């Protein structure tokens, strides 16, 4: 294994970063490293983020790796685990790093000295302060946003401007974009194109090309517009 790892790392390092040759060599190296036993594992809440960042770091820095123990593999694992454990700590600490004392003296808007505790909003207070307005608005919007899917469905179902129902193959007025959108996109599970074509007595090809050429652009426009509104 030592020889294989050495060979893979040498290969990665003989190409510039980024280059397709290096990226392919990294693919092979990462596949082997991920299978090594001894990579630190943990149930820590930040472990997966730390591991993700570790693979990025390994990919970037592997050419700086120096063997320190007789076993190449052992040495590599120690090197990787060192970074991984350090990342977990690093990700976990920001919360505590910014803990500040409520009794810390600060200046209020008028320039008078007070403490942080004094200017923090009172939890019991029913009235909303300017400081909390952002959070409040975000909460209201969250409730609104949860209905986005519903509102888009309604919009398509109602099709008030008649744009979707007006678009159909010339000889098949019933095969319009509104029906296709309902059956192929909105209904779960979605219908199959072949089944729908049989039901509407229209060829697969006609239905599919109408769908792609005319319906998808219309629906894209609707989706895009819903994305802008807040």
């Amino acid at each position, binding site marked *: 294994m030592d020889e294989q790892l050495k060979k893979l790392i040498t290969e990665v390092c003989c190409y510039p970063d980024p280059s*397709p040759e290096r990226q392919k060599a990294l693919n092979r190296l990462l596949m082997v490293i991920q299978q090594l036993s001894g990579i630190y594992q943990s149930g820590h809440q930040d472990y997966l983020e730390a591991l993700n960042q570790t693979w990025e770091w390994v990919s970037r820095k592997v050419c700086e790796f120096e063997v320190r123990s007789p076993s190449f593999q052992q040495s590599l694992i120690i090197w990787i685990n060192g970074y991984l454990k350090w990342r977990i700590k690093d990700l976990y600490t920001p919360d505590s790093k910014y803990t500040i004392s409520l009794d810390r003296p600060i200046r209020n808007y008028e320039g008078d000295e007070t403490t942080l505790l004094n200017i923090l909003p009172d939890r019991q207070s029913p009235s909303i302060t300017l400081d909390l307005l952002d959070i409040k608005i975000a909460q209201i919007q969250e409730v609104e946003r949860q209905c986005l899917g519903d509102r888009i469905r309604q919009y398509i179902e109602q099709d008030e401007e008649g744009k979707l129902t007006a678009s159909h193959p010339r000889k098949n007025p019933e095969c319009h974009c509104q029906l296709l959108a309902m059956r192929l996109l909105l209904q*779960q599970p979605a219908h199959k194109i072949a089944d729908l074509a049989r039901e509407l007595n229209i060829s697969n090809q006609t239905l599919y090309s109408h769908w792609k050429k005319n319906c998808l652009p219309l629906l894209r426009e*609707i*989706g895009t517009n819903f994305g802008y509104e807040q």
Partner: protein
Amino acid sequence: MTTTQPAQPDILSVPLPKNAHRWAEEFAAQQDSPQKGKQVYLNTLAVYAVHSYLKWLNVETALNQGDSWHRGLRAIFDVADLVLPGVGKLECRPVLPGEVAIVLPASMTPDRIGYVGVQFSQQLDYIELLGFAPAIAMTESPQILQIAQLQSLDALIEIIHKRTLLINLRQWVTGIFEPDWQPPELVFASNFRRISTITRSSTNSISRAKVIDLGRQVLLLVQLTATNSEVFDIRLRVYPGDNAIHLPANLQLIVFDETGNTSMEVQARSADDWMQLEFSCQHEEKFSVKIVLGETSLIEEFVV
């Protein structure tokens, strides 16, 4: 005797950190049914995972520029696209335990460079990257990709690399140009010819030009005109550079199709002012242009 080889040595595992789940939760909460919510949740995780993997390899991605990150579009369509700036869009399809094939959604737009299979397991802590399939030419019905037929991730890297070398005419339409392709006014200003004789500008066409050095300089002008359908009309013109009046005699302009076959060519006679080739291309079609002067030649590759 049995060996203790890893079961699947060709598969990369990508962690799904809290951050990925936060996005997935937020996006899923906006949907109108649990099924749609689940689809959005998994699509979001799949896109995030491929984004992470490409970050390891130092490939640039723009996570929030895809339809999958657009609140209106992901609510309507089944999308799991990831934008690779200057390269194109990758579709990252979730594969659930037991599935042997990926059914591409009927609403998929034909602008993908390819598809990555993303294997989920019961525990949503990691996914496995199954492999890659390059985009298939437009067909009459939605495509099904067999997992067993996916190519390795090396094929993905190859395609990304090839596409960074291509001149992307599709991006010209959105106002993104490669730096050596300049507005014709600029390129021709330093030359003898008056611009008005060169471009009949129309609202739906875009022109760019580039100086090409073959020992003697020539100017290559590409004019792209959008039509009503998905087809673009392309006009290539070669003008003399170096303030010359005529093109060098025997200068050749050749267009190759995707498979490398010559599809058209033209050769300058002794006193030609310019020469041109005109043709049409579909979306995603590739072509290359070769300009030959004696022993010297230069190739430019394009994708529409």
